């Protein structure tokens, strides 16, 4: 199956990933290639096979609702590209 440039644009929008024209063309070709290869899975009968998300059995972990020591806030937010009064500043969202 071939992925069209239009589909690439749709997926890039979902992924919040800007692509230039050259990247879109290349991505369409490479993704088509990889998904063609993945089509070998289609011939396997998996009707009665349950999916495996984790290979090792997992269970929910609970802990007591109490406050533990936490990370240094100043140190954590010091990585932010744009800060104001302990808040992350972003471009205007609401017109």
């Amino acid at each position, binding site marked *: 199956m071939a992925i069209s440039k239009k589909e690439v644009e749709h997926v890039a929008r979902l992924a919040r990933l800007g692509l*230039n024209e050259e*990247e879109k063309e290349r991505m369409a070709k490479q993704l088509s290639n990889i998904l063609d290869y993945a089509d*070998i899975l289609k011939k396997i009968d*998996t009707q009665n096979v349950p999916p*495996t998300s*984790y290979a090792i059995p997992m269970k929910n972990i609970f802990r007591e609702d109490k406050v533990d020591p936490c990370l240094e806030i100043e140190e954590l937010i010091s*990585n932010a*590209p744009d800060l104001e009064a302990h808040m992350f500043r972003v*471009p205007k969202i609401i017109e």
Partner: protein
Amino acid sequence: MFTKTAHELHSLLINRKISSMELTEAVFARIEKVEDKVRAFVTLTKEGAIKQARAADERIKNKDGVTPLTGIPLAIKDNFCTRGILTTCSSKILANHLPAYDATVVHKIKAAGGVILGKTNMDEFAMGSSTENSGVHPTHNPWDLKAVPGGSSGGSAAAVAADEAVLATGSDTGGSIRQPAAFCGVVGLKPTYGRVSRYGLVAFASSLDQIGPLTKDVTDNALFLNFMAGHDVKDSTSVDLPVPDYQKSLVDNIKGMKIGVIRELLGKGIDTEVKEVFNRAVKKLEELGAKIIEISMPNFEYAVATYYLIAPAEASSNLARFDGVKYGHRTREAKDLLTMYNQTRAEGFGNEVKRRIMLGTYALSAGYYDAYYLKALKVRTLIKQDFEKAFNQCELLLSPVTPSVAFKIGEKSADPLAMYLSDIATIPVNLAGLPAISLPCGFIKDLPVGLQIIGPAFAEETILRAAYTFEQNTDWHKRKPALN
């Protein structure tokens, strides 16, 4: 002294024949000499290392909580968070990222008195098999500087092979410890999923990622694993099982051990010379008393396709956090929020990461979820069942780690699918969450070949025992690269 193993250096340190300071300076001198050729590191932390070496020497002098790691210079892969030390995952999007905390494994290494030399290069966000996808620079294979070191833990494997570090940490999602270990002729172990805490490891594919050691021999591997393994309340997928002393597994005896050879990993796609080296290694194990049987894994041929749907799907979700808001790179051209996201990610991610985000987003998107992602999860079950059936017949499984020896830099970088197919022998192990080791088992024209030993879940002890026995009766691990 920088060529020695950690267990050899440990006895020199505790007998006061050398100091950690002397050792650390010797390793930095070695780095200075060969790093221009190898380029294993993205960050060096000499100042911190000197302080840690001084503290280790005090500890040894006062006999105060000395461990086999105390005073040993080691390297950390750049996707492990290190407090106050750049942690970039070799990506431009994290170029200035200073974590506010240490990964649990880093915390344990520090507590044991390890000396941290720096952070090693990797394929960006651990996505790749050659370290060519690093956003910083490529790393060169110490055995052939024109060849790749493997990936994604290529910097860690190359650093250990070139004696630029005594030990190194790695992470393995589809072979990222074992494949570079094979290409660089060192020992690399991927433990069982959940054996080692992933807290502070920047996530790539959360159901597949696992941390493990890269070392010069099997003994070091066991002792380093001792410090990594164990339950951690900060990682809900870490398993609450007692941790054995892995050094007790170092027994030179595999008499009567039933070991299976995977037929599907000796077919087409595997180089003839690799098969020959592998078959000699199997023969050696047989001479040492193992009972060798042939095992068929009928669903292995689907493993690469399965992996390249599941891993990118998880990655596309995990990497959504890199949006230019809380940390990392932000584009300068941010007029509105959507443009800021799109442009920040366009500027910050490299080609392979973009490709996997796209592939994963596609596989999870409406209309394709059932056909691709869910289908892959079901085939994952079949691959896991292949292993379960196999381990009813034998204790361990064997295969080559890679279909070929290290390839040349640039050889496969234009064809993503060809690169993906080079992970055929390592990927099924991650899909099933199992432990496996890579250790040197021969050479082809001065390039190392790796032997993969796979075990059932939490059978690291059996794997280490077989690996140790092989190593004690061969001397492939003693060879050193000429670095030219």
